[in-house]
């Protein structure tokens, strides 16, 4: 790698589970290489994090910002806008920032429904007075404030302009390192690209494929698949056919179907549509009604199965828009 002036790197987490941060730390001793080439100017989880320092920086003075987690509060939106302004290259890091991930399934319901379940319906909740968290609460000693939450979970690019995407929940350490190398060597793809391979998990999967002729899809608890044949050929809904390569087919290697955490390949707009057509093509039938029936019977939760990681960013977007949202 070419020795040059040190670049400035920022890492930030919004509505993150912390797994993306763990993934960055898991590049292990290579983190020393990172610090050889970059000054880490902002990384709240691992080093000092002073928002005011970031506010004082000149616009565009951070070379690369890796941003993980979705956007659910005004505060997170503020940070996204701030880091966008201060960064030359803003990377949506991981599935949450890129496409909404599992927490994005919350967009199947709205804030009211979430409150109702969490604070009233759950069986251990004892709430005879029907209390719900409030933006402002009067307590005997004064007032307490809670932030108001958006009704919807947003992906980073629904809030600000994003330069690159790094897929995965979380991205694999090796792929993070590949991306950092690409940045260091100035071998970045065109703006807006996903940094990664453009093949599928199937292409990295060691399982044997012959012909995929399925009459029925099984739930994972209905069969014990053998460890060598393609899981999809055995009737399990393996999302590897529609999922971008990069993990080395980690889940099929422990005999579990891929759940699609690496998202779609270039040129595919909608993960669900892509997976659905891949599944249809392995069904042993030409009759559309039969194909439809086999999919319907085998996949009782199409929204959660086809948009497990991409609901927030998908064409479905959300169940309904709520007008009173902040």
């Amino acid at each position, binding site marked *: 790698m070419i020795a040059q002036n040190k670049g400035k790197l920022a890492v930030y987490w919004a*509505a993150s*589970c*912390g*797994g993306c941060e*763990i*993934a960055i730390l*898991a590049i292990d001793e290579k983190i020393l290489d990172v610090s050889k080439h970059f000054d880490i100017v902002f990384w*709240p*989880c*691992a*080093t*000092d*994090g*002073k*928002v*005011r320092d970031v506010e004082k920086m000149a616009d565009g003075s951070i070379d690369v910002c890796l941003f993980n987690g979705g956007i*659910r509060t005004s*505060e*997170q939106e503020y940070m996204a806008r701030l880091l966008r302004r201060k960064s030359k290259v803003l990377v949506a890091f991981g599935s949450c920032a890129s496409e909404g991930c*599992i927490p994005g*399934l*919350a967009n*199947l*319901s709205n804030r009211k429904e*979430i409150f*109702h*379940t969490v604070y009233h319906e*759950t*069986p*251990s*909740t*004892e*709430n005879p007075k029907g*209390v*719900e*968290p*409030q933006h402002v*609460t009067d*307590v005997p*000693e004064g007032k307490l404030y*809670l932030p108001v*939450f958006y009704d919807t979970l947003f992906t980073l690019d629904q809030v600000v302009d994003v330069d690159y995407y790094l897929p995965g*929940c*979380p991205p694999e*350490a090796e792929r993070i390192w590949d991306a950092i190398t690409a940045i260091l060597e100035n071998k970045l793809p065109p703006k807006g690209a996903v940094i990664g391979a453009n093949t599928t998990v199937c292409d990295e999967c060691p399982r044997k494929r012959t012909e995929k002729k399925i009459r029925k899809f099984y*739930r*994972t*608890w*209905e069969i*014990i698949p053998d460890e060598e044949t393609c899981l999809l050929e055995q009737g399990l809904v393996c999302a590897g056919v529609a999922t971008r390569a990069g*993990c080395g087919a*980690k*889940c099929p290697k*422990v*005999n*579990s179907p891929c*759940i699609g955490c690496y998202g779609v390949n270039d040129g595919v707009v909608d993960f669900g549509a892509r997976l659905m057509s891949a599944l249809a093509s392995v069904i042993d039938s030409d009759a559309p009604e039969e194909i439809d029936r086999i999919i319907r019977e085998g996949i*009782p*939760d199409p929204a959660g199965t086809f948009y*497990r990681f991409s609901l927030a960013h998908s064409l479905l977007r959300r169940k309904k828009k709520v007008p009173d949202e902040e």
Partner: protein
Amino acid sequence: MKRVSIDPITRLEGHGKIDIFLDEQGNVANAYLQIPELRGFERFCVGRPVEEMPNLTSRICGVCPEAHHMAASKALDALFHVDPPDTAKKLRELFYSIFFATDHTTHFYALGGPDFVVGPEAPKAERNILGVVQKVGLEIGGKVIKMRHVGHHLIQMMGGRRVHPNWGLPGGISHGITEEQRKEIEAAGREAIEFAKFSLQLFDKLVLQNSEYVDLVTGDVYVHKTYSMGMVDGNNHVNFYDGMIRVVGPDGSEHAKYHPADYREYIAERVEPWSYLKFPYLKKVGWKGFVDGPESGIYRATPLSRLNAADGMATPLAQKEYQRFYEVLGGKPVHHTLATHWARLIELLFATERWVELASDPKITGRDFRVLPKEKPTEGVGCVEAPRGTLTHHYATDERGLVVKANLIVGTTNNNAPICMSVQRAAQKLIRNGELREGLLNKVEMAFRAYDPCFGCATHSLPGQMPLEVRIRDPLGNLLHRLRQNID
């Protein structure tokens, strides 16, 4: 009324906020820990195929996904009325022991330990893993990194992935281990035991041989006489993977011992308008406000309470340490919050011993690690000890196995009320007549950190990194004092 607002992470992550109010004399009237985060898993899990729960709920936390993955898998066993074969149970517990050892190592050396190892009064810049390495030597730093690395490697080898495994199923797991892998796991476990022993010696040398620290641990700033909760095996010994839930009172006598499936008879959760996180308490004792004592249903579920709730440890080395723990601290139960760090190391030793015990079992390479459920899915509860407290997952489904109801009581949530009380008490002891004593921020942070809280998991920040702000205003709202770290 004066307000002191200790604002951890408000600007930075928005995951926690502490408000302390002073009365007219400038003494603490009340303190509130607010959690401004909610993601709604209990709602959006509804409608999903129940077999997805181990994978969906692991996204609650990327620091302890294994705990959610495991609790969910056990809930699936119950819900499908299927008993996993012995090999499956052993593999799950082995995996879980490796996870516990790795997580406790991280906490002691990177998160909570630095307060002790480099000292609570040490400058913030040194109260981190680098400061620890500087104090104890590079060789030890290397050991810590290696321990974590090996732990993650084995977790990935067994569960498929280092973060967010894809492995648990009703009736077992998706994949077993080979004899070669078993040997590797066993060898790593033997080194892990040495590492755990070494960590306890280190704690002994640095903390227990230092009267200043001992005074801090046993002093009255960090005491709360609450109930203690923890999972126990058939001998009332600590277990992380399976068993009954035992609760002992502030005096150590047994309050309850129940099967996880009966949790609703024993635990209730209260809603306060000023926090998104609910406050669990013992239902049979009742909610009496943020107070301790036998009349108040507030309980703790931490490494310390697990030791209190049990009669001993199931492995020989950990049992010796357990006895010594109570000898040194004056008998059972112990209520000194900071002793949680020591308890965590005893659990680390137990986890590594259990790891080797299970990995040396030749049957663990068996191919019978999974059975298919034969009955229709209905309803089930799964419980494990997460590093940060008893974790309960409860789902009910329709006939097709789609979730109709999900309830989660997460490790840290158990400790929501006690953390509030610990913060309040530390503030009460350190703020007198409107005067902030030196070290308040460090010491309030220590009260908080002993629990290793995991609110949406973003509070797993490093010591000294948590942005804290204290503001004291006069009754007209004029700012009198401001103390801050990591904000400006």
